[in-house]
Protein backbone atom coordinates (compact mmCIF):
# COMPACT_ATOMS: atom_id res chain seq x y z
CA UNK A 1 0.00 0.00 0.00
CA UNK A 2 2.70 2.41 1.02
CA UNK A 3 4.53 1.71 -2.18
CA UNK A 4 1.43 2.34 -4.17
CA UNK A 5 0.78 5.62 -2.41
CA UNK A 6 4.36 6.72 -2.76
CA UNK A 7 4.16 5.74 -6.36
CA UNK A 8 1.05 7.84 -6.87
CA UNK A 9 2.64 10.70 -5.04
CA UNK A 10 5.70 10.57 -7.22
CA UNK A 11 3.46 10.30 -10.19
CA UNK A 12 1.60 13.42 -9.20
CA UNK A 13 4.81 15.31 -8.61
CA UNK A 14 6.23 14.19 -11.91
CA UNK A 15 3.15 15.22 -13.75
CA UNK A 16 3.43 18.58 -12.08
CA UNK A 17 -0.32 18.64 -11.96
CA UNK A 18 -2.22 19.95 -9.01
CA UNK A 19 0.92 20.75 -7.12
CA UNK A 20 -1.11 21.67 -4.06
CA UNK A 21 -2.49 18.16 -3.80
CA UNK A 22 0.86 16.66 -4.51
CA UNK A 23 2.50 18.63 -1.76
CA UNK A 24 -0.19 17.66 0.65
CA UNK A 25 0.29 14.03 -0.24
CA UNK A 26 4.02 14.37 0.15
CA UNK A 27 3.54 15.79 3.58
CA UNK A 28 1.17 12.94 4.36
CA UNK A 29 -1.57 15.25 5.49
CA UNK A 30 -5.20 14.44 5.02
CA UNK A 31 -6.69 16.25 2.06
CA UNK A 32 -10.35 17.17 2.38
CA UNK A 33 -11.18 16.87 -1.33
CA UNK A 34 -9.39 13.54 -1.66
CA UNK A 35 -11.18 12.22 1.40
CA UNK A 36 -14.55 13.41 0.14
CA UNK A 37 -14.05 11.71 -3.21
CA UNK A 38 -12.89 8.46 -1.62
CA UNK A 39 -15.85 8.46 0.76
CA UNK A 40 -18.15 8.69 -2.24
CA UNK A 41 -16.13 6.17 -4.24
CA UNK A 42 -16.31 3.61 -1.46
CA UNK A 43 -20.08 3.86 -1.39
CA UNK A 44 -20.16 3.61 -5.19
CA UNK A 45 -18.09 0.45 -5.25
CA UNK A 46 -20.16 -1.09 -2.46
CA UNK A 47 -23.26 -0.55 -4.62
CA UNK A 48 -21.68 -2.67 -7.35
CA UNK A 49 -22.29 -5.85 -5.37
CA UNK A 50 -26.08 -5.41 -5.17
CA UNK A 51 -25.86 -4.34 -8.83
CA UNK A 52 -24.11 -7.61 -9.62
CA UNK A 53 -26.88 -9.41 -7.75
CA UNK A 54 -29.42 -7.96 -10.20
CA UNK A 55 -27.20 -8.65 -13.18
CA UNK A 56 -26.72 -12.29 -12.19
CA UNK A 57 -30.21 -12.72 -10.69
CA UNK A 58 -31.91 -11.76 -13.94
CA UNK A 59 -29.85 -14.27 -15.90
CA UNK A 60 -30.98 -17.37 -14.00
CA UNK A 61 -34.29 -19.21 -13.85
CA UNK A 62 -36.92 -17.83 -11.48
CA UNK A 63 -36.65 -20.77 -9.10
CA UNK A 64 -33.04 -19.76 -8.38
CA UNK A 65 -33.41 -15.98 -8.51
CA UNK A 66 -33.08 -15.37 -4.78
CA UNK A 67 -30.29 -17.88 -4.33
CA UNK A 68 -28.28 -16.25 -7.09
CA UNK A 69 -28.83 -12.73 -5.76
CA UNK A 70 -28.04 -13.90 -2.23
CA UNK A 71 -24.68 -15.22 -3.39
CA UNK A 72 -23.73 -11.61 -4.08
CA UNK A 73 -25.47 -10.08 -1.08
CA UNK A 74 -23.95 -12.56 1.35
CA UNK A 75 -20.47 -11.52 0.20
CA UNK A 76 -21.22 -8.07 1.64
CA UNK A 77 -21.31 -9.82 5.01
CA UNK A 78 -18.78 -12.63 4.77
CA UNK A 79 -16.09 -10.95 2.70
CA UNK A 80 -16.69 -7.60 4.41
CA UNK A 81 -16.20 -8.98 7.93
CA UNK A 82 -13.19 -11.10 7.00
CA UNK A 83 -11.57 -8.15 5.24
CA UNK A 84 -11.65 -6.08 8.41
CA UNK A 85 -10.56 -8.97 10.62
CA UNK A 86 -7.71 -10.44 8.60
CA UNK A 87 -7.90 -9.82 4.86
CA UNK A 88 -6.79 -6.20 4.89
CA UNK A 89 -3.73 -7.03 6.92
CA UNK A 90 -2.76 -9.95 4.69
CA UNK A 91 -3.08 -7.73 1.64
CA UNK A 92 -1.65 -4.42 2.80
CA UNK A 93 0.53 -4.77 5.87
CA UNK A 94 4.30 -5.17 5.76
CA UNK A 95 5.31 -8.67 4.81
CA UNK A 96 7.35 -10.35 2.15
CA UNK A 97 6.97 -10.13 -1.61
CA UNK A 98 4.17 -12.68 -1.67
CA UNK A 99 2.03 -12.05 1.36
CA UNK A 100 1.50 -9.38 4.00
CA UNK A 101 1.63 -9.98 7.71
CA UNK A 102 -0.89 -9.92 10.48
CA UNK A 103 0.27 -6.66 12.02
CA UNK A 104 -2.96 -4.91 11.01
CA UNK A 105 -5.29 -7.82 11.79
CA UNK A 106 -8.45 -6.71 13.60
CA UNK A 107 -7.68 -3.28 12.19
CA UNK A 108 -4.90 -2.88 14.68
CA UNK A 109 -3.24 0.46 14.07
CA UNK A 110 -5.70 1.37 11.31
CA UNK A 111 -7.18 4.67 12.37
CA UNK A 112 -7.88 8.13 11.10
CA UNK A 113 -4.22 8.97 10.59
CA UNK A 114 -3.28 9.81 7.01
CA UNK A 115 -2.55 7.07 4.55
CA UNK A 116 -1.40 9.09 1.56
CA UNK A 117 -3.84 11.95 1.60
CA UNK A 118 -6.85 10.10 3.02
CA UNK A 119 -7.54 8.53 6.41
CA UNK A 120 -6.09 5.05 6.71
CA UNK A 121 -9.50 3.62 7.72
CA UNK A 122 -11.07 4.99 4.57
CA UNK A 123 -8.39 3.32 2.44
CA UNK A 124 -9.16 0.05 4.23
CA UNK A 125 -12.89 0.40 3.57
CA UNK A 126 -12.34 1.34 -0.08
CA UNK A 127 -10.19 -1.74 -0.61
CA UNK A 128 -12.72 -3.84 1.30
CA UNK A 129 -15.42 -3.10 -1.26
CA UNK A 130 -13.10 -4.58 -3.91
CA UNK A 131 -12.60 -7.76 -1.89
CA UNK A 132 -16.37 -8.12 -1.56
CA UNK A 133 -17.25 -7.82 -5.23
CA UNK A 134 -14.38 -10.04 -6.36
CA UNK A 135 -15.72 -12.89 -4.23
CA UNK A 136 -19.26 -12.25 -5.48
CA UNK A 137 -18.13 -12.29 -9.12
CA UNK A 138 -17.14 -15.96 -8.89
CA UNK A 139 -20.70 -16.96 -7.96
CA UNK A 140 -21.76 -16.56 -11.59
CA UNK A 141 -19.92 -19.77 -12.45
CA UNK A 142 -21.61 -21.93 -9.81
CA UNK A 143 -25.20 -20.66 -9.68
CA UNK A 144 -28.25 -22.94 -9.73
CA UNK A 145 -26.34 -25.90 -8.27
CA UNK A 146 -23.84 -25.02 -5.55
CA UNK A 147 -24.98 -25.51 -1.97
CA UNK A 148 -25.27 -22.15 -0.26
CA UNK A 149 -23.38 -23.30 2.83
CA UNK A 150 -20.52 -24.63 0.75
CA UNK A 151 -20.45 -21.35 -1.18
CA UNK A 152 -20.08 -19.37 2.05
CA UNK A 153 -17.12 -21.46 3.17
CA UNK A 154 -15.60 -21.20 -0.29
CA UNK A 155 -15.72 -17.40 -0.56
CA UNK A 156 -14.40 -17.05 2.99
CA UNK A 157 -11.37 -19.24 2.23
CA UNK A 158 -10.90 -17.79 -1.23
CA UNK A 159 -10.93 -14.22 0.07
CA UNK A 160 -8.13 -14.98 2.52
CA UNK A 161 -6.05 -17.44 0.49
CA UNK A 162 -6.40 -15.98 -2.98
CA UNK A 163 -7.71 -12.42 -3.04
CA UNK A 164 -5.67 -10.97 -0.18
CA UNK A 165 -2.29 -12.36 -1.35
CA UNK A 166 -2.91 -11.33 -4.97
CA UNK A 167 -3.90 -7.83 -3.83
CA UNK A 168 -0.63 -7.78 -1.88
CA UNK A 169 1.39 -8.76 -4.96
CA UNK A 170 0.04 -5.91 -7.04
CA UNK A 171 -1.03 -3.16 -4.60
CA UNK A 172 0.46 -4.09 -1.24
CA UNK A 173 4.11 -3.76 -2.19
CA UNK A 174 4.52 -7.34 -3.40
CA UNK A 175 6.59 -8.73 -6.23
CA UNK A 176 4.38 -7.59 -9.10
CA UNK A 177 4.42 -4.06 -7.71
CA UNK A 178 8.22 -4.27 -7.60
CA UNK A 179 8.29 -5.35 -11.22
CA UNK A 180 6.15 -2.35 -12.11
CA UNK A 181 3.04 -4.20 -13.26
CA UNK A 182 0.35 -1.71 -14.22
CA UNK A 183 -3.04 -2.51 -12.74
CA UNK A 184 -4.88 0.71 -12.09
CA UNK A 185 -8.05 -0.59 -10.45
CA UNK A 186 -7.89 -4.35 -10.53
CA UNK A 187 -7.86 -5.86 -14.02
CA UNK A 188 -5.61 -8.63 -12.70
CA UNK A 189 -6.38 -8.46 -8.98
CA UNK A 190 -10.15 -8.46 -9.41
CA UNK A 191 -11.12 -9.66 -12.85
CA UNK A 192 -8.45 -12.09 -14.05
CA UNK A 193 -8.41 -13.40 -10.49
CA UNK A 194 -12.19 -13.97 -10.34
CA UNK A 195 -12.29 -15.19 -13.94
CA UNK A 196 -9.70 -17.92 -13.32
CA UNK A 197 -11.44 -18.95 -10.10
CA UNK A 198 -14.77 -19.10 -11.93
CA UNK A 199 -13.37 -21.29 -14.70
CA UNK A 200 -11.93 -23.76 -12.20
CA UNK A 201 -15.01 -23.68 -9.95
CA UNK A 202 -17.29 -24.47 -12.90
CA UNK A 203 -15.04 -27.41 -13.85
CA UNK A 204 -14.83 -28.78 -10.31
CA UNK A 205 -18.56 -28.48 -9.62
CA UNK A 206 -19.65 -29.84 -12.96
CA UNK A 207 -22.56 -28.70 -15.07
CA UNK A 208 -26.13 -28.14 -13.94
CA UNK A 209 -28.27 -31.22 -14.42
CA UNK A 210 -30.25 -29.62 -17.23
CA UNK A 211 -27.23 -28.04 -18.92
CA UNK A 212 -26.98 -29.02 -22.56
CA UNK A 213 -30.36 -30.78 -22.41
CA UNK A 214 -32.72 -27.89 -21.90
CA UNK A 215 -32.61 -24.23 -22.72
CA UNK A 216 -31.71 -22.46 -19.48
CA UNK A 217 -33.00 -18.97 -20.11
CA UNK A 218 -32.75 -15.68 -18.22
CA UNK A 219 -35.93 -15.15 -16.24
CA UNK A 220 -35.78 -11.35 -16.03
CA UNK A 221 -33.86 -9.46 -18.69
CA UNK A 222 -34.85 -6.04 -17.29
CA UNK A 223 -33.00 -7.03 -14.08
CA UNK A 224 -29.94 -7.76 -16.19
CA UNK A 225 -30.08 -4.29 -17.73
CA UNK A 226 -30.71 -2.69 -14.34
CA UNK A 227 -27.71 -4.51 -12.91
CA UNK A 228 -25.47 -3.53 -15.81
CA UNK A 229 -26.53 0.12 -15.44
CA UNK A 230 -25.86 0.17 -11.71
CA UNK A 231 -22.54 -1.60 -12.22
CA UNK A 232 -21.46 1.14 -14.63
CA UNK A 233 -22.51 3.80 -12.11
CA UNK A 234 -20.60 2.10 -9.30
CA UNK A 235 -17.58 1.55 -11.54
CA UNK A 236 -16.91 5.31 -11.59
CA UNK A 237 -15.93 4.86 -7.95
CA UNK A 238 -14.06 1.65 -8.69
CA UNK A 239 -11.81 3.26 -11.30
CA UNK A 240 -12.09 6.95 -10.43
CA UNK A 241 -11.52 6.23 -6.76
CA UNK A 242 -8.46 4.12 -7.51
CA UNK A 243 -6.55 7.33 -8.14
CA UNK A 244 -6.82 7.66 -4.35
CA UNK A 245 -7.17 11.39 -4.85
CA UNK A 246 -9.55 13.92 -6.35
CA UNK A 247 -7.18 14.96 -9.08
CA UNK A 248 -6.46 14.82 -12.78
CA UNK A 249 -5.70 11.10 -12.73
CA UNK A 250 -9.08 10.47 -11.11
CA UNK A 251 -10.72 12.53 -13.85
CA UNK A 252 -8.83 10.58 -16.51
CA UNK A 253 -9.88 7.24 -15.01
CA UNK A 254 -13.44 8.52 -14.68
CA UNK A 255 -13.66 9.63 -18.31
CA UNK A 256 -12.08 6.41 -19.55
CA UNK A 257 -14.67 4.49 -17.52
CA UNK A 258 -17.34 6.34 -19.43
CA UNK A 259 -15.78 5.96 -22.89
CA UNK A 260 -14.35 2.44 -23.01
CA UNK A 261 -17.60 0.58 -22.19
CA UNK A 262 -19.39 2.84 -24.67
CA UNK A 263 -17.04 1.60 -27.38
CA UNK A 264 -17.41 -2.00 -26.26
CA UNK A 265 -21.17 -1.59 -26.33
CA UNK A 266 -21.07 -0.34 -29.92
CA UNK A 267 -18.75 -3.09 -31.15
CA UNK A 268 -20.70 -5.75 -29.23
CA UNK A 269 -24.00 -4.70 -30.80
CA UNK A 270 -22.37 -4.71 -34.23
CA UNK A 271 -21.11 -8.25 -33.68
CA UNK A 272 -24.58 -9.22 -32.47
CA UNK A 273 -26.20 -7.61 -35.46
CA UNK A 274 -23.89 -9.18 -38.01
CA UNK A 275 -24.37 -12.62 -36.46
CA UNK A 276 -28.11 -12.62 -35.78
CA UNK A 277 -29.53 -9.47 -37.43
CA UNK A 278 -30.75 -8.53 -33.96
CA UNK A 279 -29.31 -6.36 -31.22
CA UNK A 280 -30.00 -8.15 -27.97
CA UNK A 281 -30.58 -6.61 -24.54
CA UNK A 282 -28.59 -9.31 -22.76
CA UNK A 283 -25.83 -8.63 -25.28
CA UNK A 284 -25.85 -4.91 -24.50
CA UNK A 285 -25.68 -5.59 -20.76
CA UNK A 286 -22.83 -8.05 -21.26
CA UNK A 287 -20.96 -5.67 -23.55
CA UNK A 288 -21.12 -2.92 -20.93
CA UNK A 289 -19.67 -5.20 -18.28
CA UNK A 290 -16.91 -6.45 -20.59
CA UNK A 291 -15.96 -2.86 -21.43
CA UNK A 292 -15.87 -1.92 -17.76
CA UNK A 293 -13.71 -4.92 -16.96
CA UNK A 294 -11.30 -4.19 -19.79
CA UNK A 295 -10.76 -0.51 -18.92
CA UNK A 296 -10.21 -1.29 -15.24
CA UNK A 297 -6.46 -2.01 -15.36
CA UNK A 298 -5.87 0.79 -17.86
CA UNK A 299 -8.16 3.54 -16.57
CA UNK A 300 -5.52 5.91 -15.18
CA UNK A 301 -2.73 5.05 -17.58
CA UNK A 302 -4.04 5.62 -21.10
CA UNK A 303 -5.48 8.54 -23.00
CA UNK A 304 -9.23 8.70 -23.67
CA UNK A 305 -8.82 8.00 -27.37
CA UNK A 306 -6.93 4.83 -26.58
CA UNK A 307 -9.63 3.99 -24.03
CA UNK A 308 -12.15 4.04 -26.88
CA UNK A 309 -9.89 1.79 -28.94
CA UNK A 310 -9.26 -0.53 -26.00
CA UNK A 311 -12.98 -0.79 -25.30
CA UNK A 312 -13.74 -1.57 -28.92
CA UNK A 313 -11.07 -4.23 -29.20
CA UNK A 314 -12.04 -5.83 -25.90
CA UNK A 315 -15.50 -6.74 -27.18
CA UNK A 316 -14.12 -9.21 -29.71
CA UNK A 317 -12.33 -11.89 -27.66
CA UNK A 318 -15.02 -11.97 -24.96
CA UNK A 319 -17.79 -12.15 -27.54
CA UNK A 320 -16.30 -15.16 -29.27
CA UNK A 321 -15.20 -16.94 -26.10
CA UNK A 322 -18.77 -16.58 -24.88
CA UNK A 323 -20.15 -18.14 -28.06
CA UNK A 324 -17.57 -20.91 -27.95
CA UNK A 325 -18.22 -21.63 -24.27
CA UNK A 326 -21.93 -22.19 -24.84
CA UNK A 327 -21.10 -25.01 -27.25
CA UNK A 328 -18.84 -26.83 -24.81
CA UNK A 329 -19.63 -28.89 -21.74
CA UNK A 330 -18.20 -26.11 -19.60
CA UNK A 331 -21.08 -24.76 -17.54
CA UNK A 332 -19.60 -21.44 -16.47
CA UNK A 333 -23.25 -20.54 -16.15
CA UNK A 334 -23.11 -16.75 -16.36
CA UNK A 335 -19.89 -16.54 -18.36
CA UNK A 336 -17.68 -15.11 -15.65
CA UNK A 337 -14.63 -16.43 -17.48
CA UNK A 338 -15.61 -14.89 -20.82
CA UNK A 339 -16.57 -11.52 -19.34
CA UNK A 340 -14.14 -11.10 -16.46
CA UNK A 341 -11.32 -13.54 -17.22
CA UNK A 342 -10.98 -12.80 -20.91
CA UNK A 343 -12.03 -9.14 -20.54
CA UNK A 344 -9.50 -8.68 -17.73
CA UNK A 345 -6.72 -10.37 -19.71
CA UNK A 346 -7.46 -8.23 -22.75
CA UNK A 347 -7.53 -5.07 -20.66
CA UNK A 348 -4.37 -5.86 -18.73
CA UNK A 349 -2.43 -6.73 -21.89
CA UNK A 350 -3.69 -3.67 -23.76
CA UNK A 351 -2.67 -1.55 -20.78
CA UNK A 352 0.83 -2.72 -21.62
CA UNK A 353 0.28 -1.56 -25.19
CA UNK A 354 -1.49 1.79 -24.80
CA UNK A 355 0.01 3.12 -21.55
CA UNK A 356 1.66 6.46 -22.12
CA UNK A 357 4.10 8.22 -19.87
CA UNK A 358 2.90 11.48 -21.37
CA UNK A 359 -0.59 10.87 -19.99
CA UNK A 360 0.26 10.61 -16.33
CA UNK A 361 3.98 10.05 -16.00
CA UNK A 362 3.95 6.36 -15.20
CA UNK A 363 5.21 4.16 -17.98
CA UNK A 364 5.11 3.65 -21.73
CA UNK A 365 3.42 0.66 -23.28
CA UNK A 366 4.38 -1.33 -26.36
CA UNK A 367 3.02 1.30 -28.72
CA UNK A 368 5.35 3.88 -27.22
CA UNK A 369 8.44 1.70 -27.02
CA UNK A 370 7.82 0.07 -23.66
CA UNK A 371 8.48 -3.52 -24.69
CA UNK A 372 9.51 -4.51 -21.18
CA UNK A 373 6.28 -3.09 -19.77
CA UNK A 374 4.26 -5.36 -22.03
CA UNK A 375 6.30 -8.32 -20.82
CA UNK A 376 5.57 -7.38 -17.22
CA UNK A 377 1.85 -7.20 -18.02
CA UNK A 378 1.92 -10.68 -19.58
CA UNK A 379 3.78 -12.03 -16.57
CA UNK A 380 1.41 -10.40 -14.09
CA UNK A 381 -1.82 -11.74 -15.63
CA UNK A 382 -0.27 -15.18 -16.12
CA UNK A 383 0.87 -15.31 -12.50
CA UNK A 384 -2.51 -14.20 -11.17
CA UNK A 385 -4.37 -16.59 -13.46
CA UNK A 386 -2.28 -19.61 -12.52
CA UNK A 387 -2.22 -18.87 -8.79
CA UNK A 388 -5.95 -18.20 -8.60
CA UNK A 389 -6.81 -21.24 -10.68
CA UNK A 390 -4.59 -23.57 -8.67
CA UNK A 391 -5.66 -22.34 -5.26
CA UNK A 392 -9.34 -22.40 -6.24
CA UNK A 393 -8.89 -26.02 -7.28
CA UNK A 394 -7.17 -26.89 -4.00
CA UNK A 395 -9.83 -25.12 -1.89
CA UNK A 396 -12.78 -26.72 -3.67
CA UNK A 397 -11.24 -30.18 -3.83
CA UNK A 398 -10.30 -29.95 -0.19
CA UNK A 399 -13.83 -28.92 0.73
CA UNK A 400 -15.30 -31.74 -1.33
CA UNK A 401 -13.62 -34.28 0.95
CA UNK A 402 -15.48 -32.85 3.91
CA UNK A 403 -18.80 -31.77 2.50
CA UNK A 404 -20.77 -31.88 -0.72
CA UNK A 405 -20.33 -28.83 -2.88
CA UNK A 406 -23.49 -29.39 -4.88
CA UNK A 407 -27.14 -29.46 -4.02
CA UNK A 408 -28.77 -32.84 -4.62
CA UNK A 409 -30.27 -33.43 -8.05
CA UNK A 410 -33.71 -33.25 -6.53
CA UNK A 411 -33.04 -29.94 -4.81
CA UNK A 412 -31.64 -28.64 -8.07
CA UNK A 413 -34.94 -29.55 -9.71
CA UNK A 414 -36.97 -27.85 -6.99
CA UNK A 415 -34.89 -24.73 -7.18
CA UNK A 416 -32.48 -23.47 -4.57
CA UNK A 417 -34.68 -20.59 -3.41
CA UNK A 418 -37.07 -22.87 -1.57
CA UNK A 419 -34.45 -25.45 -0.64
CA UNK A 420 -31.71 -23.19 0.68
CA UNK A 421 -33.60 -20.09 1.69
CA UNK A 422 -37.20 -21.14 2.38
CA UNK A 423 -38.42 -18.25 0.25
CA UNK A 424 -39.62 -17.71 -3.27
CA UNK A 425 -38.83 -14.72 -5.44
CA UNK A 426 -42.28 -14.44 -6.95
CA UNK A 427 -44.74 -16.10 -4.61
CA UNK A 428 -48.35 -15.06 -4.90
CA UNK A 429 -49.31 -16.35 -1.48
CA UNK A 430 -51.93 -18.61 -3.01
CA UNK A 431 -52.36 -21.62 -0.78
CA UNK A 432 -50.02 -20.25 1.86
CA UNK A 433 -51.30 -21.18 5.29
CA UNK A 434 -50.20 -18.96 8.14
CA UNK A 435 -48.55 -20.96 10.87
CA UNK A 436 -49.04 -19.75 14.42
CA UNK A 437 -46.18 -19.99 16.88
CA UNK A 438 -47.11 -23.38 18.29
CA UNK A 439 -47.62 -24.80 14.84
CA UNK A 440 -44.21 -23.98 13.47
CA UNK A 441 -42.60 -27.36 12.98
CA UNK A 442 -39.35 -27.97 14.84
CA UNK A 443 -37.87 -29.08 11.55
CA UNK A 444 -37.94 -25.47 10.46
CA UNK A 445 -34.59 -25.07 12.08
CA UNK A 446 -33.35 -28.02 10.07
CA UNK A 447 -34.84 -26.66 6.89
CA UNK A 448 -32.35 -23.86 7.06
CA UNK A 449 -29.66 -26.25 5.89
CA UNK A 450 -31.84 -27.27 3.01
CA UNK A 451 -32.54 -30.84 4.00
CA UNK A 452 -35.59 -31.49 6.08
CA UNK A 453 -38.88 -29.95 5.26
CA UNK A 454 -38.74 -28.96 1.75
CA UNK A 455 -39.98 -31.62 -0.46
CA UNK A 456 -41.70 -31.49 -3.61
CA UNK A 457 -42.82 -28.06 -4.20
CA UNK A 458 -41.39 -26.89 -7.32
CA UNK A 459 -41.24 -23.95 -9.39
Amino acid sequence: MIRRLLFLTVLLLAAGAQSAFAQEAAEAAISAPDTAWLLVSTALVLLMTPALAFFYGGLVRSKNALNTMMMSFIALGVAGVLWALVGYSVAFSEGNAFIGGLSMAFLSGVGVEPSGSIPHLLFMAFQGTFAIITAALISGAVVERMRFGAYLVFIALWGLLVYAPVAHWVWGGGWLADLGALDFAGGAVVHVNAGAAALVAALVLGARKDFGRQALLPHNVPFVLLGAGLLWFGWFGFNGGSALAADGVAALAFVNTMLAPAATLVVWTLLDYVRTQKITAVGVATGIVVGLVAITPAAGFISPVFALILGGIAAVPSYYVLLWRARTRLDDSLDVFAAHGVGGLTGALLTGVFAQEAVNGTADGLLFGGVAQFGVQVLSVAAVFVYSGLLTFVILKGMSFVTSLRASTRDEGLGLDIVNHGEEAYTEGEGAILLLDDEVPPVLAASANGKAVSTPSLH
Partner: protein
Amino acid sequence: MKLIKAIIRPDQLGDVLKALFQAEVHGLTVTRVRGHGGETEPVETYRGTTVKMELTDKVMLDIGVSEPFVEPTVEAILAAARTGVVGDGKIFVLPVEKVYRIRTGEEDTAAVTPVA
Protein backbone atom coordinates in the same frame (compact mmCIF):
# COMPACT_ATOMS: atom_id res chain seq x y z
CA MET B 1 -60.54 -41.60 -28.56
CA LYS B 2 -59.29 -40.61 -25.20
CA LEU B 3 -58.32 -37.38 -23.51
CA ILE B 4 -55.14 -37.82 -21.50
CA LYS B 5 -54.68 -35.31 -18.71
CA ALA B 6 -51.30 -35.46 -17.06
CA ILE B 7 -50.25 -33.33 -14.09
CA ILE B 8 -46.46 -33.23 -13.79
CA ARG B 9 -43.59 -31.32 -12.23
CA PRO B 10 -42.73 -28.17 -14.17
CA ASP B 11 -39.06 -29.11 -14.27
CA GLN B 12 -39.90 -32.42 -15.96
CA LEU B 13 -41.83 -30.73 -18.76
CA GLY B 14 -38.85 -30.57 -21.11
CA ASP B 15 -38.17 -34.29 -20.76
CA VAL B 16 -41.86 -35.16 -21.14
CA LEU B 17 -42.24 -33.09 -24.30
CA LYS B 18 -39.19 -34.74 -25.78
CA ALA B 19 -40.54 -38.21 -24.97
CA LEU B 20 -43.96 -37.38 -26.42
CA PHE B 21 -42.51 -36.06 -29.65
CA GLN B 22 -40.40 -39.20 -29.91
CA ALA B 23 -43.61 -41.22 -29.52
CA GLU B 24 -45.03 -39.16 -32.40
CA VAL B 25 -47.55 -37.42 -30.19
CA HIS B 26 -47.56 -33.87 -31.48
CA GLY B 27 -50.89 -32.33 -30.47
CA LEU B 28 -51.10 -31.13 -26.90
CA THR B 29 -52.00 -28.22 -24.65
CA VAL B 30 -49.93 -27.15 -21.65
CA THR B 31 -51.32 -25.22 -18.67
CA ARG B 32 -49.56 -23.97 -15.57
CA VAL B 33 -51.58 -25.08 -12.58
CA ARG B 34 -51.25 -25.15 -8.82
CA GLY B 35 -52.43 -28.05 -6.75
CA HIS B 36 -52.11 -30.27 -3.76
CA GLY B 37 -51.06 -33.88 -3.71
CA GLY B 38 -49.42 -36.16 -1.21
CA GLU B 39 -46.25 -34.17 -0.81
CA THR B 40 -45.18 -32.47 2.41
CA GLU B 41 -45.70 -28.77 2.26
CA PRO B 42 -42.56 -26.68 2.30
CA VAL B 43 -42.38 -24.12 5.08
CA GLU B 44 -41.31 -20.62 4.15
CA THR B 45 -40.45 -17.68 6.36
CA TYR B 46 -40.75 -14.00 5.50
CA ARG B 47 -39.51 -11.94 8.45
CA GLY B 48 -41.75 -12.96 11.35
CA THR B 49 -44.30 -14.69 9.18
CA THR B 50 -44.02 -18.42 8.78
CA VAL B 51 -46.23 -20.11 6.24
CA LYS B 52 -46.84 -23.56 4.92
CA MET B 53 -47.20 -23.59 1.14
CA GLU B 54 -50.12 -25.91 0.60
CA LEU B 55 -50.20 -25.54 -3.16
CA THR B 56 -47.36 -26.46 -5.41
CA ASP B 57 -46.78 -25.44 -8.99
CA LYS B 58 -47.47 -28.12 -11.55
CA VAL B 59 -47.94 -28.31 -15.29
CA MET B 60 -51.00 -29.95 -16.80
CA LEU B 61 -50.93 -31.54 -20.24
CA ASP B 62 -54.12 -32.16 -22.19
CA ILE B 63 -53.64 -34.60 -25.03
CA GLY B 64 -56.42 -35.90 -27.25
CA VAL B 65 -55.40 -39.17 -28.90
CA SER B 66 -56.86 -41.99 -30.97
CA GLU B 67 -56.91 -45.48 -29.41
CA PRO B 68 -53.57 -46.76 -30.80
CA PHE B 69 -51.80 -43.77 -29.26
CA VAL B 70 -53.18 -44.11 -25.73
CA GLU B 71 -50.60 -46.62 -24.51
CA PRO B 72 -47.53 -44.96 -26.09
CA THR B 73 -48.59 -41.58 -24.74
CA VAL B 74 -49.10 -42.83 -21.20
CA GLU B 75 -45.84 -44.76 -21.28
CA ALA B 76 -43.90 -41.78 -22.56
CA ILE B 77 -45.22 -39.59 -19.76
CA LEU B 78 -44.69 -42.24 -17.09
CA ALA B 79 -41.09 -42.71 -18.08
CA ALA B 80 -40.17 -39.08 -18.57
CA ALA B 81 -42.02 -37.49 -15.64
CA ARG B 82 -40.94 -39.93 -12.96
CA THR B 83 -38.36 -38.87 -10.39
CA GLY B 84 -39.43 -41.40 -7.76
CA VAL B 85 -40.22 -38.78 -5.14
CA VAL B 86 -43.71 -37.97 -3.88
CA GLY B 87 -45.11 -35.21 -6.04
CA ASP B 88 -44.41 -36.63 -9.48
CA GLY B 89 -48.06 -36.16 -10.45
CA LYS B 90 -50.92 -38.09 -12.02
CA ILE B 91 -52.17 -39.23 -15.41
CA PHE B 92 -55.90 -39.43 -16.06
CA VAL B 93 -57.33 -41.12 -19.14
CA LEU B 94 -60.83 -39.95 -19.97
CA PRO B 95 -63.27 -41.10 -22.61
CA VAL B 96 -64.07 -38.52 -25.29
CA GLU B 97 -67.47 -38.27 -26.87
CA LYS B 98 -66.61 -36.22 -29.90
CA VAL B 99 -63.63 -34.40 -31.42
CA TYR B 100 -63.69 -31.82 -34.21
CA ARG B 101 -60.82 -30.22 -36.03
CA ILE B 102 -61.92 -26.64 -36.47
CA ARG B 103 -59.99 -25.89 -39.66
CA THR B 104 -61.49 -28.76 -41.72
CA GLY B 105 -64.49 -29.90 -39.74
CA GLU B 106 -62.96 -33.42 -39.60
CA GLU B 107 -64.32 -35.54 -36.78
CA ASP B 108 -63.04 -37.99 -34.20
CA THR B 109 -60.00 -40.09 -35.16
CA ALA B 110 -59.35 -38.02 -38.27
CA ALA B 111 -59.42 -34.90 -36.15
CA VAL B 112 -56.69 -36.12 -33.77
CA THR B 113 -54.50 -37.63 -36.47
CA PRO B 114 -51.68 -35.26 -37.32
CA VAL B 115 -51.67 -33.83 -40.80
CA ALA B 116 -49.08 -35.76 -42.79
